[in-house]
């Protein structure tokens, strides 16, 4: 997994609430057996016409936002299905950070497994960041995971919270499985105890 330390990039505003994972990556693109290549189909049905032409109004089709690395989004981003294809598509497009007032649980988890930082901010801060993002390509925001701050294009700084374990894994690009494998003795012991307590399980 690619490390995440500090990112300065274009932030795309998507104020719509309840953006679900079917919107982020529609089901016809879930038939892949790879993790890569989904960026061109990110937000496919919002981004392209039925014939495949770009819809000019859609934010990521606008010249200022074609190289966005941050999304500032409405409440409850990533709700719906557990498909990890959603963060894979975001990452493949180049998005490394999503900021919203809340995220659906599974999507939030999936982001961290893929080097994407989801940031929860209060409504008034998301509103400010949304306004800042609307300024376009010159309005680059800076995400500093080390200091846990977001800095707007005009220098306003907002702190955010993140789980210490997840921060550690993101900053160091660590894979969870390797870390859990180090606890194999505890897993063995649990299985042994459980086999006598709950043999049917």
């Amino acid at each position, binding site marked *: 997994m690619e490390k995440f330390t500090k990112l300065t990039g274009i932030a795309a505003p998507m104020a719509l609430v309840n953006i679900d994972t079917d919107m982020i990556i529609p089901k016809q693109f879930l038939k892949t057996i790879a993790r890569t290549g989904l960026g061109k189909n990110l937000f496919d049905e919002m981004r392209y016409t039925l014939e495949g032409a770009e819809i000019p109004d859609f934010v990521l089709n606008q010249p200022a936002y074609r190289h966005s690395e941050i999304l500032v989004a409405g409440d409850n981003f990533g709700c719906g299905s557990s498909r990890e294809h959603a963060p894979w598509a975001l990452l493949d497009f180049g998005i490394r950070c999503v900021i919203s007032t809340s995220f659906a*649980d599974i999507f939030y988890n999936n982001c961290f497994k893929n080097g994407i930082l989801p940031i929860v901010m209060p409504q008034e801060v998301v509103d400010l960041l949304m306004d800042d993002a609307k300024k376009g390509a010159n309005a680059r925001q800076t995400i500093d995971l080390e200091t846990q701050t977001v800095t707007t294009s005009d220098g306003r700084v907002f702190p955010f919270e993140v789980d210490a374990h997840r921060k550690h894994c993101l900053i160091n690009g660590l894979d969870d499985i390797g870390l859990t494998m180090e606890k194999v003795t505890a897993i063995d012991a*649990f299985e042994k105890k459980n086999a006598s307590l709950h043999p049917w399980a």
Partner: protein
Amino acid sequence: MTARTLYDKIWDDHLVDQAEDGTCLLYIDRHLVHEVTSPQAFEGLRMTGRRVRAPEKTIAVPDHNVPTTLDRANAATMTEDSRIQVEALDKNAKDFGIHYYPVSDVRQGIVHIVGPEQGWTLPGMTVVCGDSHTATHGAFGSLAHGIGTSEVEHVLATQTLIQRKAKNFKVEITGHLMPGVTAKDITLSVIGATGTAGGTGYVIEYCGQAIRDLSMEGRMTVCNMAIEGGARAGLIAPDEKTYAYCMGRPHAPKGAAWEAAVTYWKTLFSDDDAQWDKVVTLKGEDIAPVVTWGTSPEDVLPISGVVPSPSDFTGGKVEAVQRSLDYMGLTPGQKLSDIQIDTVFIGSCTNGRIEDLRAAAAILKGKKKKDGLRAMVVPGSGLVRAQAEAEGLAQIFIDAGFEWRLAGCSMCLAMNPDQLAPQERCAATSNRNFEGRQGRGGRTHLLSPAMAAAAAITGHLTDVREMMTEKV
């Protein structure tokens, strides 16, 4: 000992390790696998030379992509990419030695229907699957939730999941349901009351007399949509109905092991003085048959209602409602029961069990679907299909003009050929009315199986209670 909720108890009994920063390692008793969210996980194991730690606790079945038409044994019924995914699961199941129900097996079906049916899902267990509707299994008092593909790989390799504990949310449905009101109406009404983010950060326990009165099938319908309310999982404490459902299933314990299991299961309830972080109470008598009008499961109203206006809402929901109404082709003030439909879909992990088919067949018996309307029933598993045929339900559907299909996820998410065309309007017993969910541009109204059957007869969204009066 301090009072605990059911969630607290299951959590405590599965805790393998707790780090100083509060990060926990939770043991997983059952890992269900399907073809869409697993290929990258198995590939990860191959690349790192890892094995499946507990193949005997890992159960796979293809469901999302598989065609449901009677000719599906013919490979040409599947697109190439779908076929590759199903074949990848065939191979992964064989290579890694996990339990498998291939398409050709009569026990094949939707993973969340097969798990309980085969006795894999039991009270007090932790159950995960790379699918958000894993919440279904919470009906047994098992802690069950969806995970992403990276977590699928983590569970395959370690039989554990890294977790932080969620908060406790009690949803109580008091009293009794009125005639024509079902488990689907309960679960949609709860989401309508709490919103799709209302459960974020929580595990819900559904309780109250109206929940106790539900069959296991109904309880699965309620828990299935906990995820649509944003919750990590939904739970219902096990009781005699739960034990009766589990007893004799192929993978349920037998003999002395059964007795020991039931003794343990009887400890699985929330203590009277347990602490809740959030409580919502609905009166069973106040719940009506409901339908969704928008593109979020929280956009739910009684069938007697009218399409709302964006101005009825505040904040970000104003724009979302306007977008929904444009997408759905609806006008504020329009009566919900005036909405004409093109298609009826009965099936899915929400409502593809035998009781759902009985409820729909009870309305359809001796009647015909409206001319020109497309209608299909997709049983949740091959065994549900066989039982419905044995009970004569299949013939009722066929006589009413429905297509009688083979088991799979089908039009719930339209990864197989069962899809809506743009602007095609569907009354669906499934779980999501998102834009494009059932096919690009397709318009979905979620409702119960009985309500779907009523809509099939009239050709518009219909209050099933009117038809029940006719029957009397």
